[in-house]
């Protein structure tokens, strides 16, 4: 193997959290950022539309942001992580602004803020309806001016480990050549895994590699059953199904209607209506559709036609243009929407310093669990990437440099051995993924029950047992990613079976519980190679 590299900090993933971590780490030591796409393009940050939550006015408070987040998260969040999120989000958005971010400002030249679901006061900063794109462009400018070494289109196959210490990664390039990058510390910032579902807002790169890399290396994950279904995804044309329609649509005043013309949120959450939390709205829409009040394409109506045309043109230009492409003018016509797999609240268990349960392995952003509990508030994900990306970069850089570790040839030999077996496999990645996406969508969606979950468990296990096949080295990365996706799918199912209650985004229709989110005796579900289960809060039993 010829491609060997070494650095102080290796960052895996190039969305908002990864780039932020790399920028921070590079102020201390040599840093490499690895992306399986072109840096900045692959993560979901660049696609984020609505905004970034930060407490910036005297009417708002860190305590209020904390309270909204915990409440929205069904009290499953790690309180200390939430505290950090609320406290540091303002500083991190100020960093972005100092680095050139083009956020919308009010006429008084202050950050403009709008309402998102589950907020007591408008707290969501934005750049039109392409806030994530703006953040990534700002971060890219900063990154290009930093000493960080950028490695594009390199897939991480596995983490390198020496006993319990992570010290780098095995990588695979576009041509299928293996290589290694050793590092004193590694940051995982690989985002979520919406791609395990048939309908998702996620980019093609949202395959949950970090969950799988961490798990295989021995790290512990939590709450993997908590998959947020964004209430408003595109219904058709068929090939665009699942694409995100921003929450800003509702933030700006959009309303939801069923085919009888009823504003149905009156039934489910009369006080918050369309600005209820995402879990509640997604379930409400799903119920309307299940009970026969959905459109012929299987959606409900999201309507902004009552808003001034100018407001739509200025605040939602991207959405306006996107729908015009499909022949729908949202200024005069309603949109058809349906819930779509969006955000993984679960992930690697981290400390306040973003340390995972493995030494020298840090994590930030959607790949982690605990910050958002059972349901993430709109606008908290972008804040999460910056707050914890910064912390991960700083903490990883603080790891002491060690003398050169000895390369574990066993790990590399095993990878090469695995690759050689791929040429004799049976099932293509394309086929396995198609089947997996259907299983997950049909059996592990918004409404869950034990029977469907068991079926899914069996069927995913069958897929995992099928040997994957490739015909050329260029397909190696794809095969490894397919394996990652199957592993993540099985963790989601495990969690959904373990959590015998409805909590946050996870709804078990076969179980009636006598407790509320706040009094539930259950804590996190947890998964590692050595143990899995659900935490019982003794005091509440």
């Amino acid at each position, binding site marked *: 193997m010829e491609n060997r590299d070494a650095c102080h900090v290796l960052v895996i993933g190039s969305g908002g959290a990864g780039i932020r971590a790399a920028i921070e780490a590079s102020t201390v030591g040599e840093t490499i950022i690895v992306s399986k*796409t*072109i840096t*900045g*393009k*692959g993560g979901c940050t*660049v*696609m984020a539309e609505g905004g970034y939550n930060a407490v910036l006015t005297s009417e708002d408070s860190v305590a209020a942001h904390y309270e909204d987040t915990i409440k929205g998260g069904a009290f499953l969040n790690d309180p200390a992580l939430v505290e950090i999120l609320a406290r540091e989000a303002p500083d991190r958005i*100020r*960093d972005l*602004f*100092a*680095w*050139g971010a*083009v*956020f*919308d*400002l*009010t*006429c*008084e*030249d202050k950050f403009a803020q709008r309402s998102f679901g589950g907020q007591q006061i408008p707290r969501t900063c934005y*750049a*039109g309806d*392409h806030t994530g*794109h*703006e953040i990534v*462009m700002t971060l*890219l*400018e*900063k990154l*290009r*001016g930093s000493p960080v070494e950028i490695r594009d289109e390199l897939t991480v196959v596995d983490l390198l480990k020496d006993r319990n210490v992570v010290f780098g990664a095995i990588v695979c390039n*576009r041509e299928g050549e293996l290589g290694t990058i050793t590092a004193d510390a590694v940051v995982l910032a690989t985002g979520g895994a919406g791609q395990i579902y048939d309908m998702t807002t996620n*980019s*093609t*790169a949202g395959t949950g590699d970090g969950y799988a890399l961490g798990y295989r290396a021995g790290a512990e994950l939590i709450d993997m059953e908590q998959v947020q279904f964004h209430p408003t995804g595109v219904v*058709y*044309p*068929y*090939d*665009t199904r699942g*694409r*995100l329609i921003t929450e800003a649509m509702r933030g700006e005043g959009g309303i939801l209607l069923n085919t009888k013309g009823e504003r149905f949120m009156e039934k489910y959450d009369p006080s918050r209506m369309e600005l209820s939390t995402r879990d509640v709205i997604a379930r409400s829409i799903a119920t309307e559709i299940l009970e026969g009040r959905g459109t012929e394409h299987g959606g409900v109506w999201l309507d902004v036609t009552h808003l001034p045309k100018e407001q739509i043109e200025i605040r939602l230009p*991207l959405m306006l243009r*996107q729908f015009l*492409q*499909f022949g729908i003018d949202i200024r005069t016509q309603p949109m058809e929407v349906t819930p779509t797999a969006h955000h993984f609240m679960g992930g690697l268990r981290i400390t306040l310093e973003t340390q995972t349960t493995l030494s020298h392995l840090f994590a930030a952003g959607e790949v982690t669990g605990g910050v958002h509990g059972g349901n993430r508030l709109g606008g908290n994900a972008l804040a999460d990437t910056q707050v914890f990306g910064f912390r991960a970069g700083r903490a990883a850089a603080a790891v002491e440099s060690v003398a050169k570790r000895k390369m574990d040839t066993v790990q590399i030999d095993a990878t090469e051995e695995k690759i050689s077996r791929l040429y004799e496999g049976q099932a*293509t*990645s*394309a*086929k396995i993924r*198609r089947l997996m996406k259907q299983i997950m969508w049909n059996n592990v969606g918004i409404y869950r029950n034990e029977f469907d979950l068991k079926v899914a468990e069996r069927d995913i296990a069958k897929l995992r047992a099928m040997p994957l096949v*490739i*015909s*050329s080295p*260029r*397909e190696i990365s*794809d095969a490894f990613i397919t394996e990652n996706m199957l592993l993540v799918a099985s963790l989601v199912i495990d969690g959904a079976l373990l959590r015998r209650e409805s909590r946050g985004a996870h709804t078990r229709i076969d179980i009636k519980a006598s407790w509320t989110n706040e009094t539930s005796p259950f804590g996190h579900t947890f998964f590692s190679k050595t143990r899995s289960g659900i935490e019982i809060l003794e005091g509440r039993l």
Partner: protein
Amino acid sequence: MIVRISRFDPDKDAVPHVETYDVHVASGAHVLNVLDMVRDKFDPTLGYRCCCRAGQCGSCAIRVNGKPVLACTEEARDGDLIESLELPSIQDLITDVTQVVAQIAWLNPRAASLSCGCGVTHETIEEIKPLRECIECYSCVSSCPAYAVSEYAVPTVMRQEQRLNLDPRDVDDRIGEAIARGLFACTSCHKCVEVCPKKIDIPRKAVEKLRIEAAKRGLSLPAHMELARLVEETGRSIERKSTSFLEYVPDVIEPEGEVRATIGFFVGCMFNGRVNQSALDAIEVFRKNGIRVLIPKDQVCCGSPLIRTGLSNFVPELMQRNIAAFVNAGVDTVFTMCAGCGSTLKKDYDTPFRVADITEYLCEVGFVPPTKIAGTYTYHDPCHLLRGQGISKQPRELLRSFVEKFVDMPAHCCGAGGGVKSGFPDEAASIGAVRAEMVAATGADFIVTICPFCEYHLRRVTGLPVKNIATLMLEGYLK
């Protein structure tokens, strides 16, 4: 659906080759869905990039039937030819963009700005916004005629220079940097705007603005400054060598027969001072079609050469004089036969009268078909007519009505615009050479166009006779 995909394997192929695939996709499927299908059903090694699948990340830019598009937002059609962008090829549809990325400037934040508002206002933000939507798909790079033959550092690099120039948080000198990266090499052909998925108007919102800043610092090209001096002194961008058109034509030219309509004639410097005959021919064409032509004598240069080169101090006065001239003449429609003048009057002016290109007007009011003319003709779209005014059908309609054989030719800048011909003649010649090859491929004996700058330049680079459309029409009428 049948699609053709340009394949290239660096290990096996010297040059790309096209393969044909028969795929089944749902209605409304995008090109990206077709590529997915080809990869999943026929060849898992098909190389292409994609990420967000929603037109936001810019990964999947490719060419479909020669035109740069995002695969995820372009609807797939039967028979599509799918190729990579015109950048160094890596494999199949994957291209090497590292050289381009390396030229995109980054903001150098002032140290103090970490704690203060750094002077960024609501207005600053609104001004930068249109330049900020770039998703770095590099479609503009693939299509830029200047980038292909010169040191021009591509449209999106200029966009970024102006974005930084506008930002008080940035401390670096972006004007010097933009000049070093080829600021004056843009021909203002607007091809980059046409192919941009976000329709960012880089020539107007970045290149011209940066050139204005350069002018303020005295950094304009000498040839451009000379031109600006001439306009300020004489009201014209062409030196007077003999009697000009305006000096010997009457103010009003009556048509043959009944008067169907009256129109003002905005002559433009080239037709006034250098190629008078074409302008005289145009008047004759209008006479044959029953249209009275009014020619106010106090009209001056439209200001286009100044606006394109950033030396626009004198432009407000030119605008005032021109608008007054035609308002006093009492016309409600003014025609141009210079693509640059027409585009400038339509886009940079706010005129109380309508401005129409000669072909646009003739097709609208109807024209007497000229007698058939022998020979094979092709038409060169002037950039300032095609993209500046959105006119491409009318000239073709006219030509098809009376030339013996018309061979169509795809549009491509000839290299004469944006002050490039005077500033960088070598670059203009190189772009012209590309255009000459395209002309040769049509097998035409004559080129027809509606821009005196294109006409002049094409004659030189192709060696073929280049005719103004009015001249050719008149030939038909006189037969």
